[in-house]
């Protein structure tokens, strides 16, 4: 690009789903509408040839999908491979192809044009379907049409690696497992997509590869053209197309800082979290997807302190089978450098299950029929998960964690079902671990108050601060006007946590914390002072938390906690703790003071 050809700089805001900064060249993936020519055939004699061209593209598309499917199966990808099955069956659908051929023959249009007409036809039909799920499956038809179009154009889906390109930023409407499976991932620096959220496929892949990604940009495919210079700022959720020189320089600087800080922190990730006076805290990582394990490991996780299993239920149309559960759990527990993996049984309400949808919306789902309450009602759904957890226990150490416990009855009932599942498997001769540690989430105030009783029933506690704070302070987390009340350092919350840890230690059981608070640098010393045994957090927080712990002492933490507990209000606690931390760890808290 010469200097006089300056391009317009454009900044788009989306959702940052994988942090960091990537600077590279735009590669437009799946440009359905651009670069496709629609034309009428000049002569009827060209028709047979055009039909043949279409059939050839169908065949090629099918072969590509079969190949992708084969590779996905080899890699034991956990996402449903059946979607690709559906795509293959659409390619083989005679009604679909005959309609397209009919358009070519009768109207004398080229295959691309005919295909678009077929797609429009199906769009209309699917729009007319009342079932919202089925109606949305028109996206499968769209996907298949795109693939055929690509083959018609002779593009072989290979990413072109042009001279002088420093790396590619994949710009796309959305990405499916089949799309990313065929990319040369080592050539990619970042992702920017029109649609998607934190849990979309693009987000998961980006996080597992530690590549910056921004999704939900609405129209990045409209503005980004292959070859454009693009910045993806996954930390703040911004994408810049054709940055002007000063802006580019600023971002290059920012990227250098980010990468240097990351390298610096990652060094701490590898070290144990031991205070100067030799108090050891175990550091766990919270994960939602198997794909997050590599980044958990590089950031210094010693165990998986919380594996949320809701994902297995949400992004699919049917219930996960025992094998679906098992395949995921086994992948987690076989990671050899983990001391253990804490699998939390699913915390979902009935609204996520087909049979319950008609029972009407709950007015207050946070306090509704969810988590352990739902599981104890839907025993079969629950036991499917319990059996899979037992089966995976033969492959690595698992601790099981029951969410939202509010009474001794619930924990006893859950334990009974867990035992039943064990007996069933033993009767079938299935290999499982001899024993499994059982834990209760402490997130309901009632559980804190009866922590001494619950401690008699379980092997460990895990304090879920997010819910504990919302329930104890009676705040609806979804209500934005109440966010100012959400305060982990509220005296009531601190007392609740202390009470829980004290009750656990009196009964000689392990206590972990897996809420956001566990990864908050400001709160580390307070939690150390309580003598929590384990802190589990998102992988990015681990190095910084370890660094602070390694530079502090248990003694000072206890003094700080004691002082903090004397204050009357949350703001006094916060001011005091912040002041202390900023003085004690100037490097860590400097930026927040600016």
């Amino acid at each position: 690009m010469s200097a006089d050809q300056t391009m317009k700089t454009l900044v788009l805001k989306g959702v940052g789903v994988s942090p960091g900064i990537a600077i590279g060249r735009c590669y437009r993936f799946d440009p359905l509408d651009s670069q496709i020519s629609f034309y009428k055939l000049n002569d009827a004699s060209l028709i047979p040839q055009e039909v043949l061209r279409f059939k050839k593209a169908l065949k090629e598309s099918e072969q590509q999908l079969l190949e992708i499917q084969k590779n996905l199966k080899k890699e034991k990808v956990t996402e449903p491979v059946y979607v690709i099955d559906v795509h293959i069956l659409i390619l083989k659908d005679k009604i679909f192809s005959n309609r397209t051929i009919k358009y070519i023959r009768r109207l004398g249009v080229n295959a691309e044009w005919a295909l678009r007409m077929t797609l429009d036809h199906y769009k209309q039909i699917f729009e007319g379907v009342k079932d919202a799920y089925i109606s949305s499956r028109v996206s499968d038809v769209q996907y298949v049409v795109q693939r055929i179009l690509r083959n018609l154009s002779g593009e072989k889906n290979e990413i072109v690696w042009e001279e002088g390109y420093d790396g590619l930023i994949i710009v796309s409407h959305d990405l499916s497992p089949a799309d990313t499976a065929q990319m040369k991932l080592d050539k990619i620096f970042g992702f920017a997509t029109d649609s998607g959220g934190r849990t979309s496929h693009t987000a998961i892949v980006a996080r597992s590869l530690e590549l910056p990604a921004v999704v939900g940009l609405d129209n990045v495919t409209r503005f980004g053209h292959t070859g454009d210079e693009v910045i993806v700022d996954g930390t703040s959720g911004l994408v810049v197309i054709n940055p002007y020189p000063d802006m580019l320089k600023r971002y290059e600087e920012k990227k250098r800082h980010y990468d240097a800080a990351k390298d610096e922190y990652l060094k701490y990730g590898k070290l144990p979290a031991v205070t100067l006076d030799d108090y050891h805290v175990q550091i766990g990582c919270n994960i939602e997807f198997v794909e997050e394990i590599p980044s958990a490991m590089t950031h210094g996780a010693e165990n998986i302190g919380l594996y949320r299993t809701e994902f297995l239920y949400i992004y699919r149309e049917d219930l996960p089978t025992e094998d679906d559960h098992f395949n995921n759990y086994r992948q987690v527990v076989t990671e050899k450098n983990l001391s253990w993996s804490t699998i939390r049984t699913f915390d979902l309400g009935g609204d996520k299950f087909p049979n319950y949808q008609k029972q009407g919306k709950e007015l207050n789902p946070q306090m509704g029929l969810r988590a352990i309450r739902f599981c104890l009602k839907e025993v079969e759904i629950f036991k499917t998960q319990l059996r899979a957890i037992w089966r995976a226990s033969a492959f690595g150490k698992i601790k099981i964690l029951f969410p939202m416990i509010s009474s001794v009855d619930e924990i006893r009932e859950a334990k009974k079902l867990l035992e039943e599942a064990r007996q069933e498997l033993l009767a079938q001769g299935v290999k499982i671990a001899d024993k499994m540690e059982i834990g209760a989430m402490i997130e309901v105030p009632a559980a804190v108050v009866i922590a001494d009783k619950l401690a008699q029933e379980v092997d460990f506690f895990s304090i879920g601060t997010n819910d504990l704070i919302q329930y104890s302070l009676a705040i609806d987390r979804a209500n934005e006007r109440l966010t100012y009340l959400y305060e982990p350092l509220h005296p009531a919350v601190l007392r609740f946590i202390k009470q829980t840890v004290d009750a656990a230690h009196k009964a000689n059981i392990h206590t972990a914390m897996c809420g956001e608070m566990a990864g908050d640098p400001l709160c580390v010393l307070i939690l150390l002072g309580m003598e929590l045994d384990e802190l589990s957090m998102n992988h990015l927080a681990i190095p910084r938390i370890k660094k602070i712990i390694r530079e502090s002492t248990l003694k000072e933490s206890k003094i700080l906690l004691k002082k903090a507990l004397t204050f009357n209000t949350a703001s006094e606690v916060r001011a005091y703790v912040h002041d202390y931390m900023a003085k004690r760890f100037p490097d860590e808290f400097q930026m927040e003071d600016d």
Partner: protein
Amino acid sequence: MTEEIRTLKLKNKLGLHARAAASFVKVTQQFKSKIQVEHEGQTVDGESILDILTLACPRGGVLTIRAEGIDAPAAIEELAKLVENKFGED
């Protein structure tokens, strides 16, 4: 030429959704018989996944399957088994 007709009720949780439709079509494509599926007055080609999908037959919905051809009885039998086993879903 044999013709065989049977009425089946869907028992799987989600009815004839994508995964079930895929299993259904995979079976019909194995047979030589022409297979047609009717649901609430709409009749479609049993070998077309898009046709089957747009029937939008829910759980508890009733399908009438008509097979015409030399292997019609076997085809109907196989499809009935699939529906009976809830498409191997649950």
